[in-house]
Structure formats: structure tokens, C-alpha cells
């Protein structure tokens, strides 16, 4: 349906153009491109490279945004120590925090008398794999069996839930640690906090931020780190009013010095935190596109300069200057569109799903419909903008001068 609509639109615009003036045949511009295959191919490759880079940066920004957007559950609230909302790994609350919250709160999601309250110890720690002795920074989360209840995106895709001395690794943990995924298969051993942990399983989380973490039993991690406290307690509530219940409880129990942050707000604040990164990424898109526009401009200028007599001859045959300019723009747009398609053909298998490490963990590049629209729009814009100045030049040159040109 979209394709049909697009074709009708193009036909309508073309018909409208025909009413205003007689354009050069569509085939003329296409044949012109094929008359100079070397130059056309090089221009197309240049434009394709530019669009590929645009795809890369947009996929990075989209991956980061979507990773943080899907990480928050609207019915989950994180309880942490006062003022640690933006740096939750520095939060510390007493070990019995989960029990206090379970006993005090109404509207906590419950199934078979099991309350959805997850005590968690969350820390960044050095992780060493079996083959690579150089430790890498990883994110480790000590959890209980209630964690998968609260984190509804969690899926144990391979192996079993960790017993004492065991850990499970996320789908993107290898990217976060910068190691070969073969290092993290079931049965291999990790060294964290001076102890060996056998990998008992692998989990996925629909692209959420904790997909790059290592999970183990919370009491095990407490022993390893010689800590008795928790970092946070994640509470899943049964209805939106429950979020305010948790916030009210934390404010009322001043002595506990706890604070409640809805998980959505927490990840929204991280989005804000990474705002400068996104702005720099968009600046890169602009710079790369600008460079691409100049490359296109250069080529199209070359094409026009080499065809001055031909363009003048077209005018003597009765084609208006606007028709000739339109044909030049058509050539530029066709080159850019082909280059964009080539870039997409290379980028889709190469970039989509590629894991990228960042401070909070790792995420995958997202070459989704939005990224494709950005890339293609940029490609077409480069095609049009790169052709307009040469087209303008063609419009300005007197016919007699053009016919005499060597």
C-alpha cells in the first residue's frame, strides 16, 4: 500500500511538472549515469560510505535510547539510600530492607503468597575469565529467586539458575567484558571478588540494560564482598497507586534514609545523563553528511563542466533550463539513492545487533526503521543539495557560450 501510494505520488509530481514545462525524458538522466560508469560508481561508493556512517551513528544512538527505554518497568520501583538515585551502585541499605518493605507495603504484586520484592546487591567489579588473565570491569548483581519475578523481561535461555558458587551471564556480558563469548559458556569459570564462580546458565532480557550483567546469589556475593547490606530493593506493585505507596513509606520512615525511584524515572534520568553523548553523535551525523554533500557537489560539478556543449545543445532543441537542471538533480538523487541502498545492504547484516560496550553495561546497535529513514533521508538530501549548485550553473550559462565551449 505504501509502495502504491509512493508511485502515485511520484506520478502526480511528474504530471504536475509536465504541465509547467517539458522535462527531459526520465531515461536520459539514467543513461547519462551509465555513460560514465567509472565516475558514477565512484560517486555512488562515496555517497554510500557517507550513508553507511550515518547508519552507524544513528544505530548507536537508537541502540542506547532503546536499551534504556525497555529497561524500565512502569510498575517497578527501586528503593535505595537517600541521594543515590543517580549512582545506585553506591547505595547501601540494610540486609533486612526487603523484609521491611514486604511487611509494610500494600499493593505489592503477589503470586502464591510470594511477594514481588527483590533484594539486590549491585556493583561494578573486576572480572577475570579463564583464558584472559587481564581483568575487565563487569557489572555483578547479587539476586534471589524473586529477581525474575520483578524483572519481567528476564529469560533463562540456557542452563540453570545459579546455586552457591555459581553465576549466570547475560546475552551481552561478553561485549561488556570485551572477551570472546566462548569464555562465557556454561561450565567455564569466572573470578570475581577473589572467588571462582562457575557459569551455570545464560539469560536474555529483551535488550534491557541488565542483559550485560552477571547474576549470582545475593548472599554468596555478600560473603565474597564481606558485606551484609544491599544496594537496592526492587519492588513490583500491582497497580500504579502502589508506586506512591512506596514513595510515601520511604518519606514517612525518615530514620531509614531510603528513597524510592520508579524504574522508568531512573532510566529516564540515565537518558538525560547520556544526552551529551547523543548530541555529539548527531553532530557527527551532520559533519559526515556535510562532507558527503561536498563529495556529491564535486562530482556533479565535474559532470556539468564536461557536458557544457551537450546542455547548450539541449537548450537549442527547446528544452528549458529548468528541465535541464531537473535532469541534473535527478542524476544526483539516483546516485544517492543507489548509494544509500548499497549502504543499507552492507549495514543491515554488519551493524544490526552488533554489541557495544558503555559504562552501564552494553547494548546492541539498532538499525531499525527509524535509523533507515534517517539514513535514506540524509542520502537523498545529499543527492539534492549536491546537485543544486551545478544545476544552477547550468541554468545561468548563455546558450551561445555553451555551444562554443571546448
Amino acid at each position, binding site marked *: 500500500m*505504501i*509502495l502504491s501510494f509512493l508511485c502515485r505520488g511520484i506520478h502526480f509530481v511528474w504530471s504536475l511538472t509536465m504541465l509547467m514545462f517539458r522535462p527531459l525524458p526520465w531515461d536520459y538522466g539514467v543513461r547519462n549515469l551509465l555513460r560514465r560508469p567509472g565516475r558514477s560508481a565512484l560517486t555512488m561508493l562515496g555517497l554510500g560510505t557517507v550513508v553507511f556512517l550515518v547508519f552507524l551513528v544513528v544505530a548507536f544512538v*537508537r541502540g542506547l535510547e532503546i536499551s534504556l527505554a525497555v529497561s524500565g518497568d512502569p510498575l517497578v520501583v527501586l528503593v535505595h539510600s537517600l541521594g543515590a538515585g543517580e549512582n545506585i551502585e553506591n547505595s547501601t541499605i540494610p540486609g533486612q530492607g526487603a523484609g521491611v518493605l514486604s511487611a509494610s507495603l500494600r499493593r505489592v504484586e503477589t503470586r502464591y503468597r510470594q511477594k514481588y520484592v527483590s533484594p539486590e546487591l549491585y556493583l561494578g567489579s573486576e572480572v577475570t575469565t579463564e583464558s584472559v588473565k587481564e581483568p575487565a570491569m563487569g557489572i555483578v548483581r547479587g539476586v534471589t529467586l524473586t529477581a525474575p519475578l520483578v524483572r519481567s523481561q528476564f529469560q533463562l535461555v540456557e542452563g540453570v539458575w545459579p546455586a552457591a558458587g555459581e553465576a549466570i551471564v547475560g546475552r551481552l556480558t561478553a561485549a561488556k567484558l570485551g572477551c570472546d563469548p566462548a569464555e562465557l559458556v556454561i561450565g567455564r569459570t569466572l573470578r570475581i571478588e577473589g572467588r571462582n564462580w562457575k557459569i551455570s546458565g545464560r539469560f536474555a532480557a529483551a535488550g534491557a540494560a541488565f542483559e550485560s550483567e552477571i547474576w549470582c546469589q545475593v548472599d554468596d556475593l555478600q560473603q565474597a564482598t564481606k558485606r551484609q547490606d544491599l544496594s537496592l530493593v526492587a519492588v513490583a506493585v500491582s497497580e500504579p497507586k502502589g508506586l*506512591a505507596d512506596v514513595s*510515601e513509606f520511604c518519606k*514517612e520512615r*525518615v530514620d531509614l534514609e531510603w528513597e524510592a525511584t520508579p524504574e522508568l524515572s531512573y532510566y529516564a534520568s540515565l537518558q538525560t545523563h547520556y544526552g551529551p553523548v547523543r548530541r555529539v553523535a548527531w553532530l557527527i551525523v551532520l559533519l559526515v553528511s556535510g562532507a558527503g554533500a561536498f563529495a556529491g557537489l564535486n562530482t556533479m560539478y565535474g559532470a556539468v563542466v564536461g557536458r557544457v556543449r551537450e546542455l547548450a545543445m539541449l537548450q537549442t532543441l527547446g528544452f528549458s533550463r529548468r528541465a535541464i537542471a531537473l535532469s541534473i538533480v535527478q542524476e544526483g538523487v539516483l546516485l544517492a539513492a543507489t548509494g544509500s541502498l548499497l549502504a543499507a545492504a552492507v549495514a543491515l547484516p554488519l551493524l544490526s545487533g552488533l554489541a557495544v560496550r558503555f559504562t552501564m553495561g552494553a547494548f546492541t546497535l539498532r*538499525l*531499525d*526503521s527509524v535509523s533507515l529513514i534517517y539514513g535514506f533521508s540524509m542520502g537523498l538530501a545529499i543527492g539534492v543539495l549536491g546537485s543544486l549548485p551545478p544545476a544552477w550553473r547550468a541554468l545561468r550559462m548563455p546558450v551561445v557560450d555553451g555551444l562554443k565551449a571546448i
Partner: protein
Amino acid sequence: MSSKTLSGFIMIAFAALTAGCGQPAATPSPQATIPASVTGTANADLLLHEQPADAKPVAEVLKSVKDGVAVTILGRIGGARNPWVDGRAAFTIVDPKLDPCGADEGCPTPWDYCCSTDQLPDNRAMIKFVDAAGDTLEQDARQLLGVKELQTVVVKGKAKRDETGNLTVLASAVFVMPDTK
């Protein structure tokens, strides 16, 4: 392949890729919304027009008052970066003797008293407006009472103390002092 077929193929492939790829991205809003009917209005039943004469500052009430006793407490809204319970008629107040962070210190949230956090536990109380069943009113205090951070209020209500000494005032009415600035 003719040039017309070639260009047609390019256009079709371009349109198909643009229209057909990717997954929908859900970006749920993290903010709860407040009904427009409530915005900007203050509940007349809860607002006092004259300042009660017997008001005591937060620290004094914290030292002396027992559970279930009627109190009139004086304080300034604050004590945390977000002193409100979003969507509810509840907030925290701080004894007026504590000064919020000065403007010259560049603190974006002076009502969190970050310059005197060590004194907060002995100078902070929770205020909440409750219905007949004892549940906190499901309207944001900022909209219900027209109050804002660092505003001085006098609250009439009943004290609720727990075993750890925390004070919550189950409020029935409030007098909001006009801004001096």
C-alpha cells in the same frame, strides 16, 4: 537491463526498505499526569485563612509530642530533593530555624538542605492529608493546596509517632504563609 527497469528497481527497493524494516519502539512516558480539573485549584476546606496562634516549630514538636495528640506544627516545605509524594497530598517539612542552602552556593535544589543534612533527622516531619478511612488523599499537594518548595506552612492535625521516633502529622488543615520575596 534497460535504464527504466534499473531506475524502477532502485525506487521500489528504496521504498520497500524504508517502509518495511525495523520494530516498533515503545517509549512509555515516565511521568504520571494530573487531571486538568485539579490543576491550579486549592481545596478551600483544607486551607486556613488565619494563622493558628499555637503553632510550634518542627523540632519542638518532635521532642515533645506523643502519638495521637492534636498538634499545630510550623515548618518549611523541603528536606529532600523531592519533598513531595507525587500524586498524593503529602510532603515533608523542616524546622524554620534551619536555613536552606544559599543562592550564592549555586545549589539548584536549596530545599533539600544539603548543607545541613546532619541536622535534618531532628528537624524534619512528614505531613499528609488523609480521608476518613485514613488513606492519603490521591491529589498532589502542589495542586490541591497551591504550595511549593520552601514555602512556610502551619499545619493542624494529629501526630502519629512510630517506635523509631518518626513523626507524621495526619493533617486536617493548613495555613500557607505568603511569600516574603
